């Protein structure tokens, strides 16, 4: 079991957003989380990543058997949790190269490995760029500064490829993408899929799931996972819309 979430309750400024989430993710699996706007998908991702503005009021998150409660944001990341941001942050003055080199080497240090030398790092970066089909020289620019929506999302996938996480949570990495960018994002995920890692793909649309075939689909609604199923559930949602879920919940 890679990730196991039990009865997770989380709130911000006293307002409860997650109201008892249960979710289990095994190595080698791809899970999709769907659901209408404002139901807590991004909150769930942030809470797993350890964002301090959210208070976990009940329940627990186990990652590789360890309770995450006491781990800082960076420790969780070094343990292998990656969050692809719905809204990647612009950081003027920090180049992607410096950013990634600092990140890669801090993670290596945490694992007791020697840092990559400048040359080794550049070679690794070029190889990863190729893998995720990034041709532009994004890497010399400041992190996300002045990037188009598509560039920002591709940059998230590139970072994921650099850090090779055990668990990648991609928060609406597909929204606002044209079909080419969508294909690059999906190919990136598919190429990085391995028996020992897992993906949680948060999305609004079934479209992405034509490219990334999920093993499980969950519907998050008002802070709870109210429905789980196979990839067909995504098609059903596409057809019937979220009103169907709403009605079912009200009934």
């Amino acid at each position, binding site marked *: 079991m890679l990730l196991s979430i039990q009865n997770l309750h989380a709130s911000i400024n006293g307002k409860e957003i997650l109201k008892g989430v249960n979710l289990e993710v095994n190595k080698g699996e791809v899970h999709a989380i769907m659901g209408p706007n404002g139901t807590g998908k991004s909150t769930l991702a942030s809470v797993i*990543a350890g*964002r301090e503005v959210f208070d976990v009021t009940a329940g627990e998150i186990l990652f590789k058997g360890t309770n995450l409660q006491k781990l*800082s*944001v*960076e420790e969780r*990341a*070094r343990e292998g949790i*990656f*969050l692809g*941001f719905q809204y*990647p*942050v612009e*950081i*003027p*003055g*920090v*180049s992607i*190269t*410096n*950013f*990634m*080199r*600092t*990140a890669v*080497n*801090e*993670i290596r240090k*945490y694992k007791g490995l020697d840092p990559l030398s*400048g040359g080794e*790092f*550049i070679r690794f970066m070029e190889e990863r760029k190729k893998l995720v089909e990034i041709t532009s020289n994004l890497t*010399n620019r*400041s*992190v996300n500064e002045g990037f188009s929506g598509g560039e920002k999302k591709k940059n998230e996938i590139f*970072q994921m490829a650099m*850090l090779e996480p055990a668990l990648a949570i991609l928060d609406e990495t597909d929204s606002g993408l044209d079909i080419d960018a969508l294909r690059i994002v999906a190919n990136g995920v598919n190429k990085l899929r391995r028996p020992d890692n897992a993906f949680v793909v948060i999305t609004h649309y079934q479209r992405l799931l034509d490219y990334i075939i999920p093993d499980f689909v969950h519907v998050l609604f008002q802070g709870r996972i109210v429905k789980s199923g196979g990839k067909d559930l995504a098609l059903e949602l596409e057809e019937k819309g979220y009103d169907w879920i709403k009605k079912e919940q009200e009934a």
Partner: protein
Amino acid sequence: MVQLFSRHRQQIVSCDTPGMSTLRDQALESFLKLGFPNTKMEAWRQTDLTECLARGYDYPVERMPEEDTQKVFRCNIPHLDTAIIGQLNGWYVSKDVPLMELGNGIIMGSLAEAKKKYPELVEQYYGTVADSTSEAFTALNTAFAQDGVFIYVPDNVQSPKPVQLINVIQHDENLFLQSRNLIVVGKNARLSLVHCDDSYNHQASFSNIVSEIVIGDNAFMDHYKLQNLNNSSTLITTTCFRLGAAASLESHYLSLNGGLLRNNIRLHFNGPHGIANIYGIYLMDGKQHIDNQVFIDHAHPHCTSNEMFKGILDEHARGVFNGHVLVRKDAIKTDARQSNRNILLTDTAKVNSKPFLEIYNDDVKCSHGSTTGQLDNEAMFYLRQRGIGEDSARMLLMFAFADEVVGKIAIPQLRQRIEDMIKKRLQGELQICEACVLHCSTPEQPVEFYIDLSKI
């Protein structure tokens, strides 16, 4: 102070031309009227000198012995080739050659000596740029200053390498010192000047440094002011620039340490099409205080000025920024920008920022802005989510913030060294200088975090 002046008048005026002596007397009179500034005055409301002035100081009227100057003036930025001129406790350090005349007509050395040797040349400029009637510290300096540095670059001459002016304070008693610099860059000439203010020991000092800088038509000057003094030092600098037609200036104020620092920057466009970029970065902590006052007089049309001052303040540090751009009636097509941005790392650090435009004509492009805030939480989360530790993440963000200013340094070796110093400073490791400020403690060891790779 005044008694001191009358007692030592003979000594103080010894190198003056008659014209300069008159200027001294007038300046002293002005100072007596003005007195030391206090917080009731608008320009000094945020900077209180009471405590600094209350400390007792020695006032050296005699040149002090030059001890072991070779040791004092070491500067080893790798591969930075500069012509070094030094001042120890306000006096030009001569190494027996008080004034150098280079083959290309460049003169540099002691101002006191220049007054004797080139009285007409000095008199033509001396006291014409700085205002000794309404500014107390300038008046005081004009009345008392005996030595300083004189640099003259004749018309059409390009100074072949940067000149580095190292101003060192090293004394066993508290010192009050006043030095005066005069720098003249002729028409079509070019000069790059690195001006360092350092202290070596922890003794208190009060420095009142006035520099007059005249930049001729179509000339270019690249100017750096580097400040790294101990916490009991007070440094008041007044630098007055006069720019000729189509002249351009790049000025960089890099303030890394100091007890109380006040930089008065006065710039007068004396002809059309001048360009001035003035950058400042200050990193203050403890109870350090920095006050930058910039006044730009757009007296002629088609001139461009750009001020960008950025600061990071920690603990109880105080920052003050006052930018005043005056656009006169005839100065059409003026392009003036002012920006001051600050990061406060604690609740107890404080900034007063007041960019101010005074415009008397419609045909201009002016902007000003000021922001003060904390490190960006979203950016912190983003960096940490990639496995970067909290300290490194803070460092990356602070360095990136500072680097917008440091990145403007045109001399690559100097930029590299300042970047290293800033990294050390941000990590709390930069000491005041053991020797020249640029000879920061361990030059061979690059500072460990990955910042400069973008240049690969």
